[in-house]
Structures are given as C-alpha cells and as structure tokens.
C-alpha cells in the first residue's frame, strides 16, 4: 500500500469514527497535532485529543480531497472537511494535513485548520 493509500484509508477511518482502526495505522510513538492544540504523543493521548478537539462536537464527517502531494516520506493533502454538527446543520471547513511516514505507518499527523466554528456555529 502506498503512503497515499494509507492516508485515504486513514481518512475513511475518521469518516466512520473508527478511532481504533485509525490508531492501527500510526506508529506507537506517533505525534498528532490539531490546529493550535498542543501535540499529543502516543496512541492513548492521541485518541483522547482527537475526541476532545473535534469528534465530540460532531455527529458526522466526510472529507473531500482537493489535492494530494506524495513526497519522499510525507503526504500533504488539502481537504474540505464537511462536518455534521451535533445540534444539526452542516459545516464545510478548509483543512490541510501533513502525514509523515516511518516504516509504512504514520509517525506524525499535523492538521492545519481553524475549527473554531465547530464550537461557535
């Protein structure tokens, strides 16, 4: 599986809220950073951060990949994140993800976006 394929699988895990499946694609000491939140290190911390940073605020999510760049050991992808809010309504937000790979698994996932409308919309 190419690194791009892994990224696509990982995004599908997110869409089905499959945090366990998502974690299996990460290295044990992976780093996850969402927006301006402090980076979470390690699978347990990452699972907690993902839930607190945005999954708890939404009832659904789908990703539209606008562009994807496969570099040496890194995949960069530009997305539209289509969120379904707990209180109803859809919210599309622009997002950019960096995925760094080590031995076929993701060692760092860095999410660049302003997710504040999730909490104020």
């Amino acid at each position, binding site marked *: 599986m190419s690194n791009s394929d892994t990224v696509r699988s990982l995004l599908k895990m997110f869409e089905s809220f499959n945090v366990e499946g998502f974690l299996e694609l990460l290295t044990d000491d992976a780093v996850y*950073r969402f927006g*301006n939140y402090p980076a979470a290190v390690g699978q347990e911390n990452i699972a907690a951060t993902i839930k607190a940073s945005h999954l708890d605020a939404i009832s659904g999510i789908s990703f539209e990949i606008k562009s994807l760049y496969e570099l040496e050991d890194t995949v960069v992808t530009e997305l539209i994140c289509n969120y379904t809010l707990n209180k109803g309504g859809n919210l599309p937000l*622009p997002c*950019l993800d*960096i995925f760094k790979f080590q031995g076929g698994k993701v060692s760092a996932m860095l999410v660049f*976006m*302003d997710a504040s409308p999730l909490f104020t919309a």
Partner: protein
Amino acid sequence: MTDATYQWEWPHTLKWPKFNNMGERVDTLKKLFLAGEALNVNNFIKFFADECYYQFGNFPPARTPQEIKSASQGFIESCEGLHHRILNISIPSEDTLLVEMVVTYISHSGKIVTLPCFDIVKYEGALIKQLKIFMDINPLFQD
C-alpha cells in the same frame, strides 16, 4: 539617507538562509513574506497575478490583488509585527510550493502568539496565482 540609496539587500541571505538557492519562486515567496512582515500591503499585493485566489483560514477568498488588500487591511492594522519561521519548503511541481511554518504575531497590546501555519503557493510565470493559508489565527484576537 535618500530614497534612492535605501534599497533592500538582495538576495536576502541573512534571513531564512536554510532556504537559499532554491530558485526564483522561493525567493519571490521570501520577498512576499518580507512585505508582509513590513506590514506593507501595497508591496504584498504586487506579487499576485491580476486574477488570483487568496484564501486565509476560513475567510472568504479574495480573487484580485485589490480584494486581497481590502481583506488584509484590517488584519494588518491589528498587528504590530510578525515573523514567519519557515520549517520546510517542498516543491512538488515547478509551479507549486508547500510551506510549513510557525508564524509569530505581536499585537498592539504587546500580546505575542506563535501559531502553526501551512501555505500552498501556486505560480503563473513570476507571479503568484494562488495562495492558500491554513491556520487558526483566533488566539491573536482572544484576551
């Protein structure tokens, strides 16, 4: 010192030296950042094509240099200064740069925030056709 003698030293080898000799488009990007850091919106928009696409966070996109100026003016007036710390520049194709940074802003009240930021930059000839900036700028405006 007269205006005629006051010129930028260029190549600006002392700032961002890690990204020297990466080609004209990286140099153009550095000049764009220097215009931004000087809070000079008129110089900033000179790097853009007449028909362009400028997206900052979740704000509506601007499609001309004049729209970039209108959209940026208020923001620039809210800052006392800023600095782009470039972490990485990738060149996936001749006309595209991917730029990972942390950007430090200083507000007029003296508040300093350092925030992660990522730019996708696309060129048309020597000019920038598209600049998409992915970041959450909100901490600058929060008490």
